[in-house]
């Protein structure tokens, strides 16, 4: 028999704020975290737009020998995870005595790789890279660092599923708990924000060039959208078996009741309708709920012309004549990529727990597909007990989570 999986803690570090409270306020007020970075233009970027994320100073928090191995996105992940563990009331004593797992989404560590290669090319001496180079450069850098810092002893694995990484991490973690292989897992997603990590992404003309109005550039589902805005940070979600949470008296916030996934088996960057539709259908089927119980859909919609249209078609196909509110929080955050699946669960949780749905900023005119959805351009005050969150990625990887309030 499958075990129930609940969320007992969350943490967030993003362009909307450095903790849950600040992020909740930004969501409520519809405050955009998008800015224009002139330095990117000097580097040859088509678009200088980015999420505004400050690098945390952890000098007095972690030792030198801990910090030297952590890349930018790992710093964000540390802050988000410390907040989540605290909120979940997971003490170090408890962690030391149990096999707490770690599944985190991350799909690049480009700046660290670049820094190492620059030294090799310039100095012709690998020792000068220093000891941090290898640990910062590997794709599993976030999980290797968090596992050592927080002394986690369960599963220890990075999930690399492009822009669905963070969502897959939560989904796969929930399966391990359902089947009794783990009792508690630290899940999440992290995304580096430095320009080096996304220069090649800018190069394929994927980013909005509405530089004169940074806060209006990310406009998911709007007729006049012209591309995504890259962002980042980290989000952590602690998932746990219901029994474990009750036994240790943890705060039980919600239940992960459905995880769906699929692959498009199609184009490397252009999403289709069939793949996402199957992911949504699977998540709803696994949740075993009437679709009309879903009170809010947090869309993947990144503000790209084709992606948003095809997701709108998929949502409309799956939900039929039932039209819950659909928004993309990327209208405020930009696309948080490897982190997005986890951060959007946190954003949706904050809205569900506080009875509102944040505005889909800049949704001024629908197109022929988004007109079929119920997309609020202003904040909606509404109580809902279940939401669905979509995350799709390059290569056609899709992940959908259905989460229920407890």
């Amino acid at each position, binding site marked *: 028999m499958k075990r129930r999986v609940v969320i007992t803690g969350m943490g967030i570090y993003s362009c909307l704020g450095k903790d849950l409270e600040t992020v909740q306020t930004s969501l409520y007020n519809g405050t955009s975290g998008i800015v224009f970075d002139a330095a990117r233009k000097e580097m040859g970027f088509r678009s200088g737009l980015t999420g505004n994320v400050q690098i945390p100073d952890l000098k007095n928090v972690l030792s030198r*020998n801990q910090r030297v191995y952590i890349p930018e996105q790992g710093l964000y992940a540390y802050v988000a995870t410390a907040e989540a563990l605290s909120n979940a009331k997971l003490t170090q004593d408890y962690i030391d005595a149990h096999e707490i797992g770690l599944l985190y989404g991350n799909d690049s560590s480009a700046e660290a790789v670049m820094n190492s290669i620059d030294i090799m090319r310039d100095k012709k001496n690998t*020792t000068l*890279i*220093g*000891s941090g180079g290898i640990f910062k450069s590997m794709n599993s850098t976030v999980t290797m660092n968090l596992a050592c810092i927080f002394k986690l002893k369960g599963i220890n694995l990075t999930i690399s599923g492009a822009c669905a990484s963070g969502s897959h991490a939560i989904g796969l973690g929930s399966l391990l708990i359902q089947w009794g292989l783990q009792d508690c897992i630290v899940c999440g997603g992290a995304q580096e924000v430095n320009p080096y990590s996304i220069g090649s992404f800018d190069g394929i003309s994927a980013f909005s060039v509405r530089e004169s109005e940074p806060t209006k550039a990310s406009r998911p589902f709007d007729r006049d959208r012209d591309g995504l805005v890259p962002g980042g940070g980290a989000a952590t979600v602690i998932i746990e078996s219901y029994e474990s949470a009750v036994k240790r008296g943890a705060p039980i916030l919600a239940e992960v009741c459905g995880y769906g996934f699929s692959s498009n088996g199609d184009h490397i960057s252009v999403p289709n309708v069939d793949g996402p539709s199957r992911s949504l259908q699977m998540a709803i089927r696994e949740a075993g709920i009437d679709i009309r119980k879903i009170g809010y859909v947090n869309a993947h919609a990144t503000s790209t012309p084709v992606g948003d249209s095809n997701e709108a078609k998929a949502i409309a196909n799956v939900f039929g004549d039932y039209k819950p509110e659909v928004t993309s929080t990327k209208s405020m955050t930009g696309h948080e990529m490897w982190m997005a699946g986890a951060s959007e669960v946190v954003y949706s949780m904050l809205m569900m727990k506080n009875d509102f749905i944040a505005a889909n900023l800049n949704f001024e005119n629908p197109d022929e597909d988004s007109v079929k959805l119920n997309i609020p351009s202003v904040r909606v005050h509404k109580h809902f007990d279940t939401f669905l969150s979509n995350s799709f990625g390059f290569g056609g990887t899709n992940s959908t989570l259905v989460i229920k309030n407890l």
Partner: protein
Amino acid sequence: MNKQEIVEKINNALAEEFEIEVSKITPDGDIKETLDLDSLSLVDMVALVENVSGVEIKGTDVVSIKTFENLYKFIEERL
């Protein structure tokens, strides 16, 4: 660089990198103990010394450099 300049430059760089008071560094002090070096941070010490002084410390040389005085002398002889 004369010996005094080497001592000052190396001590300041090491103290900053390994986050200790510069006063903790004494000529007879054991480098690994003073800087709390493990096998990984030892690599950072070698890289830092090379970046600061321009003197390369090969793997075989590291074994013989135990104290800060050993290190200053090693650098002085190769400048």
